[in-house]
Structure formats: C-alpha cells, structure tokens
C-alpha cells in the first residue's frame, strides 16, 4: 500500500481585485495532480516558485482542503480523517517563521511534545535525541530570537520529527541556509530515510533533488510535467545536446528566433553581470551551432560550448515546455 496517495488533486484560491468594484478572481494553484509515494521512499516535488508545491504539501498535511480530488496518507483521508493523519505525520516549512521566538529551543520542543502526545517520561530523552541529531545540543536553552537561519531550520526539523512520525513532509527545508548548513541538513534528511521514514521533499535546488531523491515529480503551473528517478528524467533529455553561448545584449525577439529553429527544444537566458549565458537544448545529435549563431548575427557573442544534459537541463526542458 502506498504511504502517500494523491489522486487528481486540485486547489483553487478565490480572491478579488479592485477597491470599490471588487472583481472576483480564481487562481488555480494545483490542477489535478496524481502521484504515490511508497514506504521508505524519498520523493521529491521539484518546481519553480508558484508551481503549486507548497499548496500540494499543505493539502497533504491537512492545512488546506482540496477543491476536488482525493489524498490519503497512511490510508487515512486528509479531509475525513484529518486527526488520524496529523498524529502520524511530521512536517517542516522552510524559512524563519513557525517558532515561538521568545522561548528557548527546549521550551519550543517541550510544548510541541505535549501537543503530539509524547509522554512526560519519554519527553526529556526524545528532546535530547533530536537536539543531538540536528546539532543544537548545547544551545537549547537560548531564546530562538537569537538563532541564525540555519539554526532555526534545524530546530524546525527537530520539531517535525520529535514525535517520531512515520511520514515527514519537508517544504524547501534548505532555503536560505548557507552551503555548510544546507549540507548538514541534507545529511539529516538522509538519516531520516536510513531510519525507515517516508519523506516527501519539495525543493527547487537540482543538486539537492538529484542527491537525495529516489523519485522526482516535476511540477509546473500546478501540473506534474514529468515523473521518475533522477536518472530516468535525465535520460529523457539525454539524446539531446546542450549548447551554451556567452552573449551580450540579446533581446527577447532574438531568443524567440532561437526557439523557432527546428531541433531546438528549450532556450533559457541567465543574466550574469554584463553578459548573458544562453542555454540551448536541442534534440538528437544535430549540430545546430551554425544556425544558432546565424540568428545571433548583430549581437556580440563570446565562448560557445557543448555538453551532456544534466538534471537541471531535464528540469528546464520539462518546465519550459509547459
């Protein structure tokens, strides 16, 4: 039996615009997504900002009601059996918020231990264990308001796993954390899997998804546009090539002309101080350097190179194709 099941899950937000004449507005954040996560698996939801990752997680952890569709966690419906779901899951949101700032880390954990029914006897041992696991031992008596972002993030994880849940939802847990802190957090996530937990992770860091996830679903504009192991996703674009071109002052019209060349599947532009890096994905082994350069006639062009596709290329190809 799948530990997490999402079946045609949809979520629409209703809002309005205008001051005097208010006009109702509907935003479809999640548009019918389906996936399953098996026991002990680390499943990644990968997508750009606003793709619907957080909305999906919030529906699964019972904070939002789906507009339609169904979701079950450990066999319990997230709408009908919300309480049963809540008892069995842990979740961590990225960012600074979500902690009682004026309390110490230990007081925060003690309070949540009580909410999640960790018995008095087990509390002290368990709190010490999770503090040790996330590397906050020795700093637990300090008030959270004085913590760095990395320390807060680690405290979030400690809170999320305090009651030893079977399933852990991690929503961009390394966002804004420095590289050393992010590496430690990734190690903690890997430890969760080693301990037999099932983890659903959302991120937009390719490296993180590639290193940690058993399977990934790429989500864009509320829809799943690709799903599989990191290797399978890379293989999806492996038959193609990636050409990188350093250029200066290339405008939108020129980028559109590049996209219209036969054999080009995606073009992205990365601004790098004064210069631009054009990343052009092409199908098969076709040599398209000459037509690409022909369309860039009139613009200053620097280094041109060609390489094998990476997971990031697979992700960009899937997201931009949408």
């Amino acid at each position, binding site marked *: 039996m799948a530990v997490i099941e999402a079946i045609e899950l949809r979520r629409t937000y209703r809002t309005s615009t205008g001051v005097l004449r208010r006009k109702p507005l509907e935003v479809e954040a999640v548009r019918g997504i389906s996936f399953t996560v098996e026991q002990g698996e680390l499943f990644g939801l990968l997508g750009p900002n606003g793709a619907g990752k957080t909305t999906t997680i919030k529906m699964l952890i019972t*904070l939002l009601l789906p507009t339609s569709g169904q979701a079950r966690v450990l066999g319990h419906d997230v709408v009908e059996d919300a309480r049963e779901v*809540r008892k069995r899951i842990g979740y961590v949101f990225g960012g600074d918020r979500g902690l009682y700032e004026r309390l110490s880390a230990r*007081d925060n954990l003690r309070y949540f231990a009580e909410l999640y029914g960790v018995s008095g006897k087990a509390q002290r041992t368990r709190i010490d264990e999770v503090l040790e696991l996330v590397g906050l031992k020795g700093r637990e008596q300090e008030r959270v308001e004085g913590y760095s972002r990395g320390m807060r993030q680690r405290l979030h994880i400690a809170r999320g796993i305090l009651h030893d849940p079977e399933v852990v939802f991690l929503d961009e847990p390394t966002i804004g954390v420095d590289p050393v802190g992010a590496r430690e957090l990734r190690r903690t996530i890997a430890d969760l899997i080693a301990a037999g937990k099932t983890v659903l992770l959302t991120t937009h860091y390719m490296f993180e998804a590639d290193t940690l996830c058993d399977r990934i679903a790429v989500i864009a504009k509320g829809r799943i546009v690709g799903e599989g192991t990191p290797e399978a996703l890379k293989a999806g674009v492996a038959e193609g090539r990636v050409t990188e071109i350093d250029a200066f002052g290339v405008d939108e019209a020129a980028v559109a002309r590049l996209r219209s060349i036969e054999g080009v599947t995606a073009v992205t532009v990365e601004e790098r101080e004064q210069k631009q890096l054009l990343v052009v994905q092409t199908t098969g082994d076709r040599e398209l350097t000459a037509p690409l350069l022909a369309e860039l006639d009139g613009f200053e062009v620097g280094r041109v190179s060609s390489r094998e596709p990476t997971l990031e290329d697979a992700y960009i190809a899937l997201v931009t194709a949408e």
Partner: protein
Amino acid sequence: MRSLKVVASGFQMNLKMLGTSSFFLLTAIVQPIIFATVAFYMFRAGGRNGTLLYAALGAGMMGVWSTTLFGSGGMIQWQRWQGTLELGAAAPPAMALIYLPFSLANAFTGMYAMAATLVWGRLVFGIGLHLAHPWLFVLALPATVIALGLMGLVLASTFILYRHANALSNLLEYPVWIASGLVFSTSLLPIWTRPISWVLPPYWGILAIRHAALGGAVWGPLGMVVLLGAASLLISTITFRWFEHAARARATLSLT
C-alpha cells in the same frame, strides 16, 4: 488527562512568553493605574467618596477586560504573523483546546490589573479594603477572570477565519465596560440594553465581586458567571471547529 496536560503546558508557555514581552508588561502595569486614577478622581469630583471602593473594583475589572480582549484578539493574529497558527491547526488536539490556555493566561495576567488598582487606591487615595465577604471575594474574582478568558476564546475563534478581525477588539473595549456596569451603574442605560448586559460575563462578575466586597447577594451573580463561562467554552468549541474548517477552505491560516 492528556487534555489537561496540553492546557497546563500551553498556560505555562504563554505566561513565560508574556513575561518576556516588555510591551505587554508595560501595558499591563501602567494601564490599570491610569484607569484607577481617572476613576478615583471622577468619583471624588462627584462628591461620592464613600463609593471609592466601588470605583476601584470597576476600574480593576476594566483592566482585566482590556487585557483579556487585547490578549485574545492579538493572540491569533500574532500567531499568524509568527507562522505558528498553522502549527496549532495541524496538531492533533482540537484547536479550542490548544488556544484555551492562551486565553486563560491572558485573563490570569489581568488579575494583576485588579491587584494594582486596589494597591494604588490604598497607597495614593487611602481607600481601605474592608471586604464584606472575604472568602466569597476570593472565589468570585478567579471565577470572573476564568469566565472572561473563556469569552475571549470565543472572540479568538473568529480571528482564525478573518485575518483583520482583531480590529474588532478595539471596538469592543468601551462598549463592554459600559454595558457591564464597570464605569457606572447599568440602571443609567436605556432599558433595551439590559439583555446585552445579561449575556456578558463581566456584568455578573463585577456584581459578584462588588457584592462580596461591599455587601449583597453573591451566589446568584456568581452562578451566572459560571453558567456564562461554561456556555462560552461550549460555544468556542463549536466555533473553533467551524472556523478552522472554513479557514482550511479559504486558506486564511497563514499570511500568504
């Protein structure tokens, strides 16, 4: 047993947080003294020196209500800003149970307002605290404070759904003071306001407290305090469930 532990833990945690908030401490310490001073001068100017204890108790209760009202109103909004409202909503216990101790802790700190007013009255205005029924006074004061906390819980539940409902707190401070007879007797108000007064726990609370201090029937008003407190608890249990469900549908638990 588990519910009691959740309440005890939340109560202790909220008292700890309130104790570290210099804004809250300043408001809680200064405001009652201002209320008390204004009330004493009003009654003295009206040539009603004999009723200064009556005024002191009313001023004290004004402080208790203000602390409860702003504490309960601010509680949900502050948790939303801090990002902890979602954590409470996604925890296994019912939301009413999670926020009950927060509301009680707010009301409990309001008891300071009563104590500060009486001490201020004694030291500055020389008002003696000669209680007609000391034991009933000791019973009536915490019963009223708890009932007010439970009334605050009902208000807090509405703030789960409406992000800007704490503006309501500002509107409710003065009308409840007046309708409850904290500043002057409700007999001076139009007759149609009576039913409003009757459903307010502070109306019966101040009656019980004043009768315990100055003489009069205590058990009747005290019974009403307990009854309205229990009704508030029941209503808040239902409204928290409704509003939590509606907030999940409308996505108002977080700021974004």
